[in-house]
């Protein structure tokens, strides 16, 4: 037993000296939000930001290209001088679309990598899990990749700004379009069982009335089978199905219905209406046939359109993204990155977290959407209106109808796309 006690003595000695050294040399970590002069993540020549996004798991196939596209835009921007001489470093962390992972990776980004801001964190359930955390730590939480209305609470969450059009707006626009173009048809809805689904239902009922939806079915992302829900919608005699689904489940819903020999009209939220991604899921042979006529919403330049933005983004994609397939996600990722660059430019020569937030809340950012941005002191929503898109012969483009929600009512408005300026490099 003498060896035993020797080992213990050594262990005790080592432990005690470790504690003493630490107490002498190491101080308590500074409380977040202190008045340090050093701005986290900003040095003389770099600004480091981070994001959480699914690179693995059920949602990865539909969305992993977004962060790649944003990274490509930042590479383009850095090659063109960056913002105020700073290059932007974009740290992408995989959360597998699992809220529990999101909490870990976002803490890692904030505390370990010390990012300046979180940009375009993806997903309603995932980002909800870190919303409180980011605001308590006063980390700018910009342009969340989700249309939940949770992000638009300036009083409660002053550091969070959304990017997608509200799901309420999307639901209302799709339902209004259904009522305008296909009067008298039976409209139903398939929705994710979280805020995404809830808010799309709220929007659709805004346009159609409280009993306007003939049937509503819900699905859960963890269960890759929607046969029961599709069967129920078919049995209810639905003719137009509004989808509050992410890309993978849009494809699953349309594919499952086709297997049942049922071909209703599909109206999908922009979050799940990316044509190229859907073809990837359904296969090159039958995908285009099943997706012919798919109605969706969008608020960014459409991949099938001829906007100058699309031309520029295609060039960037070829040059900086190894010519990855160019689709709606590519445009989305680059648009978000562009908007962040614009915000950072507006935040001044020596940006702080506060000046970045002020720059966004000033309402002066232009973005590149088909409607003006809605940011302001009392609005943290990016787009309160959307254009309707449709797929025709494999090309997804705007059909012209554009709707906005104002004061609880849906109205048709005229699109007013933002023109490209300065080769897509803010401040040049």
């Amino acid at each position, binding site marked *: 037993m003498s060896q035993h006690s020797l080992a213990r003595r050594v262990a005790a000695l080592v432990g005690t000296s470790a504690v003493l050294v630490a107490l002498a040399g190491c101080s308590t*970590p500074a409380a977040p939000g202190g008045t340090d002069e050093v701005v986290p993540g900003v040095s003389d020549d770099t600004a480091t930001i981070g994001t959480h996004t699914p690179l693995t798991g059920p949602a990865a196939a539909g969305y992993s290209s977004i962060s790649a596209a944003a990274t490509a835009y930042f590479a383009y921007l850095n090659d063109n001088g960056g913002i105020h001489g700073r290059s932007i470093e974009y740290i992408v962390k995989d959360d597998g679309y699992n809220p529990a992972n999101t909490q870990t990776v976002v803490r890692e980004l904030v505390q370990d990598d010390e990012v300046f801001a979180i940009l375009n964190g993806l997903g309603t359930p995932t980002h909800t899990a870190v919303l409180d955390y980011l605001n308590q730590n006063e980390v700018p939480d910009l342009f969340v990749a989700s249309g939940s209305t949770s992000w638009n609470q300036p009083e409660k969450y002053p550091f969070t700004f959304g990017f997608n059009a509200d799901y309420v707006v999307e639901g209302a626009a799709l339902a209004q379009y259904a009522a305008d173009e296909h009067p008298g048809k039976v409209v139903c809805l398939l929705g994710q069982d979280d805020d995404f689904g809830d808010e799309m239902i709220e929007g659709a009922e805004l346009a159609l009335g409280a009993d306007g939806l003939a049937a509503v079915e819900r699905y*859960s992302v*963890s269960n890759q089978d929607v046969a029961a829900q599709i069967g129920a919608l078919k049995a209810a005699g639905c003719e137009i199905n509004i989808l509050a689904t992410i890309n993978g489940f849009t494809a699953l819903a349309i594919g499952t219905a086709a297997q049942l020999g049922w071909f209703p009209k599909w109206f999908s939220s922009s979050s799940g209406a990316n044509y190229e991604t859907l073809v990837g899921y359904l296969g090159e042979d039958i995908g285009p046939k099943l997706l012919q006529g798919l109605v969706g919403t969008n608020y960014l330049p459409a991949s099938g359109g001829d906007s100058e933005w699309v031309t520029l983004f295609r060039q960037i994609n070829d040059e900086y993204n190894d010519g990855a397939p160019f689709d709606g996600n590519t445009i989305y990722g680059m648009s978000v990155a562009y908007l962040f660059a614009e915000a950072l430019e507006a935040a001044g020569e020596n940006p702080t977290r506060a000046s970045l937030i002020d720059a966004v809340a000033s309402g002066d950012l232009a973005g590149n959407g088909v409607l003006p941005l809605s940011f302001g002191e009392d609005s943290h929503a990016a787009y309160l209106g959307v254009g309707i898109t449709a797929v025709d012969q494999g090309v997804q483009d705007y059909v012209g109808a554009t709707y906005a929600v104002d004061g609880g009512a849906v109205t048709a408005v005229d699109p007013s796309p933002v023109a490209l300026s300065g080769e897509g490099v803010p401040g040049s």
Partner: protein
Amino acid sequence: MSRLLPSLRGIPRTIVLGAVLTVFAIGATFLLDPYRNFQLATVAAYFCATAGLTLLIGRSGQLSLGHAALMAAGGYGYALTANAMTDAGVTGIPRFLAGMLAAVVVSAALGWLLGLAAARLRGPYLAGVTLTLVIAVPAVASVFSGVLRGDQGVQIAYDGVPPVLERLIAVEQWQAWVAILVAGVVVTALAVFARGPVGLRMRAVRDDETAARLNGVRSGRVKVTAFTVSSVAAGAGGAVLCFATQSVSPGAYTLAFSLLLVVAVVLGGLGSIGGAALGSALIVLLPWLLAAGTAALPLPVELAQRLSGNLSILVFGVLLIGVMLVRPGGLVSLRRRRPSRSSGTATAAAPAEQPATTASPPAAAAAGARHP
């Protein structure tokens, strides 16, 4: 330790030891930066569950693959109660205690029911039942999505640092303190329980159920008790995790995680509380170290994406096979030069000694390596 406190024996000794180690671990939080403290809080939460699991498997001989579900039960119990208390205007420590109480009650009830089934099953059948439970977690959350909020899970209000300590410590450190305190209380209670008469009966039932029954031990009752106690520990772990992350969702309690808990206790050493501490530190730190390691290597994006998440599973598998070949008693048996006869004092002293030397130094070493 027996040299330091020769007069203390039995249960008082376990309690003193538990208290000393808890204080030591709380002191160690001063060495760590916020992210490391968050990891330490996670380790402490997992430690509650693995300590309960290692006693269940190692001392009573019942295998549970579903401890993640019991943690989830505790987490949801805590979250729903905490939200109800917030609505009623109660905050701070009373809210925390009420949440913990609910977590313990909910997980105890679930564990008791499961234990009733478990006492009648053995081997693969018992494993099957517990496996079903954890597979059902996402389905239960989505069926009762009105209350449990589906995949999104339940979010709770945030508990800041109490005003007295605000100038002294950061919020992550405070969360680590709470997690360590709870783990200290739970694990000490488990150690006392395992040393007591029920612990003795558990071992009798494990070694030979027939012989135990001939000696008047009611084996069914012993098994159910063991299961219930083990679930309370898991539930407390789930509640602490919910406290530290302000949310609970089915994604945190997957089948993979549940199996990882079993891997942790087997790697650490079945039946040993020290082994459980070692195992829980491993399942938190190893994936993170591997991710940091692969990120530092100049790997092609494709390969890096493929390795993400999968590499740690591979390493756990290799580690498990390696440890079982070399040291069937688990990592904790590495420090014993000779295979000691399993006399009561030797085994109880060794496991109880372990937590401080395992839970904090790897984290401290990691912190030191990254922030020289």
